């Protein structure tokens, strides 16, 4: 009986100590998240600087890919209340002049170096901006995480980006006009 009482005491202290320790870690990490905040910076900074850094040899294969990247950037920035406008984007050191049309109208027009493309989802057009933008914004970040992250969030949560363009169920069909 005395062992059981001792056990109850240890359990009470133990549960409290485990929760206390992990709660302290939780608040520390929340604080660190604020101090070392990085979200939303990468894409906007590189666009504002007029270039997107990439390793040599990993640039887009054609302007269709550039159109898809431009569309993703525009959606991402729109989500944050900014416009891509007519600013050039640079990929692997190559500048592209891009313009992205109204994201709330389907299909969305994307112009890359004078070549015109139209983007829609499964041929039916993009959802309204408020719905598509956060998804695209997040996916653009996700493409920078490497293969493991993409494989963890494949297909059905929307499209994902690979060297052949947007892919997967619900992917964006970017077609040359």
């Amino acid at each position, binding site marked *: 009986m005395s*062992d059981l009482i001792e056990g109850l005491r*240890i359990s009470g202290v*133990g*549960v409290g100590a485990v929760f206390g*320790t992990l709660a302290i870690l939780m608040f520390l990490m929340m604080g*660190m998240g604020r101090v070392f905040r990085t*979200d939303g910076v990468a894409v906007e900074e590189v666009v504002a600087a007029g270039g997107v850094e990439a390793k040599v040899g990993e640039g887009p294969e054609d302007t269709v890919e550039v159109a898809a990247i431009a569309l993703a950037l525009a959606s991402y920035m729109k989500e944050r209340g900014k416009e891509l406008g007519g600013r050039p984007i640079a990929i692997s050191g190559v500048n592209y002049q891009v313009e992205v049309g109204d994201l709330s109208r389907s299909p969305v027009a994307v112009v890359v170096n004078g070549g015109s493309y139209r983007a829609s989802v499964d041929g039916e057009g993009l959802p309204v901006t408020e719905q598509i933008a956060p998804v695209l914004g997040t996916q653009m*970040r996700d493409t920078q995480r490497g293969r493991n992250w993409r494989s*963890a969030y494949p297909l*059905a949560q929307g499209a994902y980006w690979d060297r052949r363009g947007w892919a997967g169920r619900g992917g964006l069909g970017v077609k040359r006009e």
Partner: protein
Amino acid sequence: MDVGNLSDLAAGFKDLGADPRIILMVVIGGVLIYLGIAKGFEPLLLLPIGMGIILVNLYPPLMEGAFEGRPEGILAWIYSYGIKNGIIPLLIFLGVGAMADFTPLLSRPIYFLFGAAAQIGVFIVFLIAIAAGFEIEEAACVGIIGGSDGPPTVYITAILAPQLLGPITLAAYAYMALVPIIQPPIVRLLTTKKERAIVMKPESREVSRRGALAFPVLSFVTAAVLIPRSAPLVGMLMFGNLLNVSGVTHRLARSASTVFIDVLTFLLGLCVGALMSAEVFLRPQTLAILGLAALAFAVSTAGGVLMAKFVNLFRKEPINPVIGAAGVSAVPMAARVAQKLGQEANPENFLLMHAMGPNMAGVIATSVAAGIFLQILS
């Protein structure tokens, strides 16, 4: 030729005939090897454990002197200088840290609470084990199985109840392999299909390099200050992780997470198997340990799920409660189970990376729980 020496060659057969329990233990060892090879249940551990059981039961001198502090057999040496003093489990934890990715946890720190809640089974089963007649130190070792983490279980048992090291380690690793069977019914019981179908967005924020670097240091300092006896476990885990995230010790991180941990794992497995001689293993106490371990797993799983449901009461954007089950630290099986259950309810659900958050929190929480037991009982 000395005819007496020739008759000694048959001594093994005589021993087998004299004690049929040896044959049973050899069969048990064979079954573990079979499960590892044919069914893929934790093969990295079940193969060495199965082989250790067969070796020590057919040739007991391999463990001669292990418990008297005068090791003579090779496995007795490894046990005395590697496991009994906790070196091998701690070094394995270093390798685990080097392999671990804490990013999903750091991107949503609320997951720390799920890992803590999933330790509830540890303390409840600790109490049940005391009521069942185990010594208080033994009960702590039985309870810690509910944390589903091998190295802390071995570490604490080697210190508090070395006589139970064999059955407890076997139970811990066997149930870890059975997570895909044990967890789903409990999760289904505690959640509705609608809850399991909740789709979660990808990580809410990215983790900066400075944040990833600060985490192992801050975690170790926090654990060492609050629960000093958890410092060896948390320290090794976080040191391994620091090697990984520092970006300047790739070679060390790669070694720690590959060859280093592999060698230690099979030494641990072989020795744990060698602790299971017939007279130690074939006792009612072993069956009781296996039963209590299953209960600890189940209660811990329930704790994680219920905590996720509780947290949802205060959130606008709900968390899929299935990922709470991954708070037991069976990495990555528990996370895979969450992914499977989520997708079963909604094919467009991808919970794997979310579930890795509570999973990693569970690893830390189990180390802290082990430290608490050591702090109070040793």
